[in-house]
């Protein structure tokens, strides 16, 4: 019954999306037509229905209703409740339903709240949103129905794998979906504005919270994913330019560019067509990421739920949405009025420069990722990896970082180079000083040296906008920018430091052996068997002391699961303020010694702290923008009321 209710709600929601599309299109053509007033209510009810369907799925998982195919395949009555619930979206069908639900809720929210734009633009936006939604409803209802019943219920579910019961696993995918949905809303706004020739600062202000929100979630998603791979894959790496990693990076790059161009449009009414273009690109990158991950068209360590058929479906949706949007763009962008003017040395100038650099990095990552596919079409296999991506991305990243350090000091529209000449000289000295120092003190690679030098300069530069300001009166949005830019510097410092100063030690040790890794003395106290619910493991007891200080214990394991049979290495980490000690136990050697892989990675956690700071900066900006919008809205209403009072 519950499953049928959910399915019915889903069909109804799809029907309402259809209504929303028709009503939206009609009212764009004929603003006082019979259906004109229906798009907004349709969006709201669609959101409610989709949410209801998703709640029904949660309910089914909470109850472990084993007559439902999805539950039987992914859940188990003995699971803790939190993992029963997370099981609802930890699979293909459920995750698509989550995606659709969040998208419908977002559509309902703009349908209910957004009143700043001309009504015709809103109708076009809602129609686009419904059009995008319909594709996903079709995908769900026609090929991935989450509510499908089994002919005969099974006695017990199949999903009691403790490996899948991971709190990170429960919340990482939704984080990315929220980001993707935010970009889909931005896409709808962009098309709505383009179709109704309303590419205005108000459009940018309406779109900005969605871009910001999406960007925060994408930042968190990438940060978490990178950390998870770092400790779970057990080789101490945090980024390998793997296709799936790149697929998550590309929407972020596009969203970062969009975020900045939307600010220019909102503040200065410039970069109109460019912002529209980025809105389309950002959404297409998120769809493409999903496609690359699920179609298995590229080889990846992280290849997931690979199914060419689903891949084909996503590709068809991608072709319709993005092909359509780019056609409209080509036809319409020429009619978008030229925006406001500005000079090279202005805030806009700096932002345009960074937008161009971000787009170039995006292009490099995109082409580098797809290139092996291109040569395979001609029967040649090549690999494109870090030795290509690192330097080529750096060519465009370093100038961007330089402009990023001083750009926020510039005024809008037109400014003299004088304002930034002093800080620029100071920061250049900063870069040179750090570069010389690092070159002299270590044998770091050129990229690592440059990374450290630019990180130092950016860390200082990012704080300069606060100089001479009353910190209490500084707008939240400015704090957000400063925090996010500082976060980039922190993350960059972590990355460069990891590359420059990491020390690796491989030893074959027997109990009692002592070894040194950088400042650490590490003793293998013993190796003992331990047992888990469906695995046994050998666990090493490592006693580690930093520069002769008190000892801490690390317990890396070599686990053997028996159903299905496989071995995994569980790494052990010890964090200090200035770095992380990382230990992995390898295979045994015949004479009773055990292979240990140990790293001392100075400042490596800064990579992820930096990522969190960046997201926090985005969050501060979002709060700042939203409260400012609310205040403006309130003031406008008050003055309208006062006018009415006066008339009476």
């Amino acid at each position, binding site marked *: 019954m519950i499953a049928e209710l959910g399915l019915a709600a889903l069909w109804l929601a799809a029907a309402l999306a259809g209504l929303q599309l028709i009503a939206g299109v009609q009212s764009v053509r004929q603003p006082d037509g019979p259906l004109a007033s229906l798009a907004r209510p349709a969006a709201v009810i669609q959101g409610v229905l989709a949410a209801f369907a998703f709640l029904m799925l949660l309910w089914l998982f909470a109850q472990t209703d084993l007559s439902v195919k999805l539950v039987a395949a992914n859940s188990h009555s003995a699971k803790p409740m939190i993992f029963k619930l997370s099981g609802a979206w930890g699979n293909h069908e459920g995750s698509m339903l989550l995606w659709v639900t969040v998208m419908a809720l977002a559509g309902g929210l703009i349908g209910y709240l957004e009143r700043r734009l001309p009504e015709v633009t809103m109708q076009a936006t809602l129609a686009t949103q419904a059009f995008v939604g319909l594709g996903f409803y079709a995908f769900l209802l026609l090929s991935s129905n989450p509510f499908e019943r089994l002919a005969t219920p099974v006695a017990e579910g199949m999903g009691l*794998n403790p*490996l*899948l019961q*991971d709190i*990170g696993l429960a919340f*990482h*995918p939704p984080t990315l979906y929220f980001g993707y949905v935010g970009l889909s809303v931005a896409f709808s706004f962009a098309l709505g504005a383009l179709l109704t020739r309303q590419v205005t600062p108000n459009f940018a202000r309406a779109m900005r919270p969605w871009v910001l929100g999406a960007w925060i979630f994408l930042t968190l998603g990438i940060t*978490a*994913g990178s950390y*998870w*791979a770092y400790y779970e*894959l057990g080789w101490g790496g945090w980024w390998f330019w*793997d296709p*799936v*990693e790149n697929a998550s990076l590309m929407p972020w790059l596009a969203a970062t560019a969009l975020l900045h161009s939307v600010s220019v449009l909102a503040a200065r009414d*410039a*970069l109109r*067509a460019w912002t529209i273009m980025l809105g389309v690109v950002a959404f297409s990158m998120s769809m493409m*990421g999903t496609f690359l*991950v699920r179609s298995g068209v590229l080889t*990846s*360590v*992280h*290849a*997931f*739920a690979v199914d060419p058929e689903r891949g084909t479906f996503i590709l068809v949706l991608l072709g319709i949405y993005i092909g359509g949007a780019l056609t409209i763009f080509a036809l319409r962008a020429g009619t978008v009025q*030229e925006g406001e*003017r*500005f*000079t*090279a040395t202005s805030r806009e100038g700096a932002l345009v*420069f960074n937008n*161009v650099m971000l787009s*170039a990095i995006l*292009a*490099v990552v995109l082409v580098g990722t797809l*290139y092996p596919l291109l*040569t395979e079409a*001609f029967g*040649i*296999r*090549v*690999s*494109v*990896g*870090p*030795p*290509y991506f690192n330097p*080529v991305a750096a*060519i*465009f990243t370093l100038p961007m970082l330089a402009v990023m350090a001083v750009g926020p000091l510039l005024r809008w529209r*037109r400014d003299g180079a004088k304002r930034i000449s002093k800080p620029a000289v100071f920061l250049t000295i900063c870069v040179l000083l750090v570069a010389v120092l690092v070159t002299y003190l270590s044998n770091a690679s050129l990229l690592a040296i440059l990374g450290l030098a630019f990180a130092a300069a950016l860390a200082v530069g990012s704080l300069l906008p606060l100089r001479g300001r009353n910190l209490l009166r500084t707008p939240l949005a400015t704090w957000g920018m400063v925090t996010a830019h500082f976060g980039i510097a922190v993350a960059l410092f972590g990355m460069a430091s990891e590359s420059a100063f990491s020390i*690796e030690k*491989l030893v*074959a040790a027997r109990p009692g052996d002592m070894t040194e890794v950088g400042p650490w003395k590490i003793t293998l106290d013993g190796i003992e068997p331990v047992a888990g619910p469906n695995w046994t493991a050998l666990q090493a007891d490592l006693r580690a002391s930093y520069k002769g200080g008190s000892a801490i214990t690390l317990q890396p394991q070599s686990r053997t699961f028996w159903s299905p049979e*496989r071995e995994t*290495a569980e790494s052990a980490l010890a964090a200090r303020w200035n770095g992380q000690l990382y230990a992995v136990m*390898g295979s045994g050697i015949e004479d009773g010694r055990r*292979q240990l*892989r140990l790293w001392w990675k100075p400042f490596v956690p800064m990579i992820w702290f930096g990522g969190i700071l960046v997201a926090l900066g985005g969050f501060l900006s979002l709060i700042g923008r939203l409260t400012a919008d609310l205040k403006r809205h309130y003031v406008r209403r008050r003055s309208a009321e006062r006018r009415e009072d006066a008339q009476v």
Partner: protein
Amino acid sequence: MRLLAILALILSPMLPLAAQDSMPAAPYANRQLDDPAMEREAQDLMFTLRCLKCQSQSIADSDAPMAGDMRHQVRIRLMAGETPEQIRSWLVERYGDYVSYAPRVSASTWPLFALPLALFLLGAIILRRRLGRKGAAGL
């Protein structure tokens, strides 16, 4: 999604345990060279060579026995006086460009290297159009 991805891989039957050999790893598969500078060269090289049995992993990251044997080759060849690039060429001669994560300029890879140049020019043109003239704006 990535998380799911990794887990799905761990769970997939792609690497059956039964198909592992019982031989110990090659002498220099997991043993560092005594000369730290040379070991650093070895590490840098191993991170850019592809494990042929894995899905997109370098031989430095992989537990596959064949990756261990390749690390052994890298280390003993460095000790024998070969340069990292000679070792890379030795492998590319046998497995083609696929084995190296560092693409070389060749008939099939030149677009990869032309791309940054083209982007640089394109970026310069856009920036010139937008910023070059005083108060100019287009697009």
